[in-house]
């Protein structure tokens, strides 16, 4: 864990609190005004770094990934950067259907190349292969050679592992009679292996069989489409579904006599029988090839069908990626919208919180050498002794902001550390251009006293400057630093600590007020007002460091 850090709590966490819990919380609110506990399990789901947050201008609220809705703008192949129409994605699945392939071993992109790398012999060598430039896998490993470097998908559809063309299935019609009588004959096992090697064909056979059975048993079933699929969009289908759940009392009663459906009984219908000797070949292969011959879980997950061995792995088209826009869950306004063009990395709209709320940074205010005090070590903070830290807030807005900071007197958790913000109320200047400020009328300039503080004093307090209550430590064009004093509780060395119990996290409530310039935002036409008072409040967590144990620190 790197110290210090700052996380911001998204208020959407409050909305998702259960009703019963909310009533209880309301009672507690009167007592302690809803203290934020960064150690509660719920807080883990609401704290985000500032860079991960968005800001809704209409709601004027922070938006985290949980309170935004994502919409897909376009689908594209990461390899060829070709945008795939949605209709193609729906029909052919979320993989690139062009000539892009990923290595089944290491997932690097495969390149189409000649077999012979020798340039002199290259001209005469016709077959093409797909080869991986990283792990050197090629389609020769599974016996695939291609006649041309175009229409690879179509050429692959004609091949199966081993390089043999896919045979037309010869199915025995009287196989049903021999079911259960013993192991299959040679012709039968050929048919079975044909289905085993081609799972698509096996699925198509079973699908067509059951579609025909369903249509035969109930020809007027509104749930079925002509292709055998389910049709949920028509009102009659919905009525049928309702009747299933209401005991056939909904709508028209079924008066027809339904015929019984039978199961698959023949291999052409998709029947597959598992014999005790079916796995013998696989077991034998496991023994001979060992661990290296078995496909890893990640390699198997990439495949479309079950592939136990490395030899069964096929090159797959790369998974398509999406460009997504984000909307506010409350008002549905767009927060992020990337450009439609795949090659572009620009955004049309991007309302990141970084441009709307101040960045908070924290650094230790080291005591001056004359004070003869130990330096502040963020990995072992000295207990029972006040340590001072500089909290700097930097304003990204073009308007000056009034900030109020509040912390609990004692931090929540097993060890209560005392926290005091020496200057809880202060102003931060606007984020105007430095040249504007220099050429302007000087209204936004800070007092000369504040500007006169030297960098030496700021960095180490060597000038003997003491932080005073109610006064800011330092102020710049669009930033202000205030001092926070912490007195850490004692942790005995003998004490066994759970994970990160000794981390000092300060929950801090930030409330900012400012007058937004409507003229600049282009909203002044409606009411005729030029300024609008705005307010934003949220909880942050400042991770300061680890508290050192008492004995170790004193020694």
């Amino acid at each position, binding site marked *: 864990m790197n110290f210090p850090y700052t996380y911001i709590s998204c208020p959407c966490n409050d909305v998702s609190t259960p009703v019963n819990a909310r009533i209880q919380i309301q009672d507690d609110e009167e007592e302690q005004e809803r203290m934020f506990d960064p150690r509660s399990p719920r807080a883990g789901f609401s704290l985000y770094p500032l860079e991960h947050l968005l800001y809704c201008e209409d709601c004027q609220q922070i938006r985290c990934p949980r309170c935004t809705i994502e919409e897909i703008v376009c689908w594209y192949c990461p390899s060829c950067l070709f945008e795939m129409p949605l209709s193609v994605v729906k029909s052919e699945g979320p993989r690139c259907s062009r000539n892009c392939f990923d290595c089944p071993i290491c997932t690097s992109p495969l390149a189409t190349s000649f*077999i*012979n*790398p*020798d340039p002199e012999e290259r001209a005469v060598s016709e077959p093409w292969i797909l080869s991986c430039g990283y*792990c*050197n896998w090629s389609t020769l*490993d599974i016996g695939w050679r291609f006649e041309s470097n175009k229409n690879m998908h179509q050429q692959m559809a004609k091949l199966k592992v081993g390089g043999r063309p896919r045979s037309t299935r010869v199915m025995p019609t009287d196989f049903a009679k021999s079911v259960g009588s013993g192991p299959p004959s040679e012709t039968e096992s050929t048919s079975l292996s044909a289905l085993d090697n081609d799972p698509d064909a096996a699925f198509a056979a079973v699908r067509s069989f059951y579609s025909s059975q369903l249509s035969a048993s109930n020809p007027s079933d509104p749930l079925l489409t002509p292709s055998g699929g389910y049709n949920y969009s028509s009102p009659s289908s919905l009525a049928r579904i309702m009747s299933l759940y209401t005991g056939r009392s909904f709508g028209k009663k079924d008066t027809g006599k339904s015929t019984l459906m039978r199961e698959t009984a023949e291999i052409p219908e998709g029947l597959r029988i598992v014999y005790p000797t079916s796995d013998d070949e696989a077991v034998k292969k496991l023994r001979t090839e060992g661990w290296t011959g078995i496909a890893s879980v990640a390699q198997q997950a990439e495949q479309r069908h079950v592939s136990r061995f490395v030899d069964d792995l096929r090159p797959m088209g790369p998974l398509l990626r999406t460009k997504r826009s984000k909307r506010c869950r409350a008002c549905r306004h767009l927060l992020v919208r990337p450009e439609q063009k795949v090659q572009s990395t620009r955004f049309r709209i991007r309302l990141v919180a970084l441009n709307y709320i101040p960045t908070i940074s924290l650094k230790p205010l080291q005591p001056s050498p004359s004070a003869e005090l130990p330096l502040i070590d963020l990995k072992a903070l000295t207990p029972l002794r006040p340590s001072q830290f500089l909290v700097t807030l930097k304003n990204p807005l073009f308007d000056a902001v009034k900030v109020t900071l509040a912390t609990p007197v004692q931090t929540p958790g097993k060890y209560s550390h005392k926290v005091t913000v020496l200057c809880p109320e202060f102003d931060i200047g606007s984020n105007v251009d430095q040249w504007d400020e220099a050429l302007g009328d000087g209204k936004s300039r800070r007092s000369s006293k504040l500007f006169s503080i030297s960098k030496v004093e700021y960095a180490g307090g060597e000038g003997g400057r003491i932080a005073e209550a109610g006064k800011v430590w330092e102020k710049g064009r669009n930033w202000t630093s205030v001092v926070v004093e912490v007195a850490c509780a004692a942790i005995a060395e003998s004490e066994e600590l759970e994970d990160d119990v000794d981390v000092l996290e300060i929950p801090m409530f930030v409330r900012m007020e400012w007058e937004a310039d409507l003229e600049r935002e282009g909203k002044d036409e409606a009411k005729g007002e030029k300024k609008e008072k705005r307010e934003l409040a949220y909880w942050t967590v400042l991770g300061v460091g680890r508290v050192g144990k008492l004995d170790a620190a004193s020694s």
Partner: protein
Amino acid sequence: MTARPSLTNHSSTSKLPTPPLSSTPTTLISASASCTGTHLITLGSKSIVQLRARLTSNYGPISVGDGCIISERASIGLLSSPQNEKEAKGVRLSSGVLIETCAVVQGASIGAYTIIEAGAKIGKGTVVGANSKVCAGVEIGEGMVVDDNTVVYGSGGERRKEKKGLGLDRARKVWVDLQEDTLRRMWTGK
């Protein structure tokens, strides 16, 4: 346009101890390559040592076979004292070995026509077989053995044994020879 690196048959380093160097007239060593140490460094014929490559023989001898390419900023040789007899024998590269940029080879021996890709690290006492490939960034620990015709890839150092008789058996040899010819033509203009 960058100037062609000047060529020399000996190390350019003057401050560090100069090792006994055995090379042939066809060996090309860049002027900015460094050969340091006290043990013997043997460079085979037609081998090329490129710019800022480091051959360190402080803790053991280095033997580079014929037609090897040691690319820019690659490091060959033991960087710490050997722990056993196997490591004390130093580093031996067989013929046609390609060591790519920033690779660190401390291994005992590298087989013929093996490619050690950019940033790969071969630990002390490791034996890498012939016609193998250690992919970019892969780290092989000390004392490991990589068989012939093996590709070591991925962050976990996964291994894949290459099949023989697929028509790609000579591919690596052709690739290294092509690179060696191209580099030689670039450097010498012949």
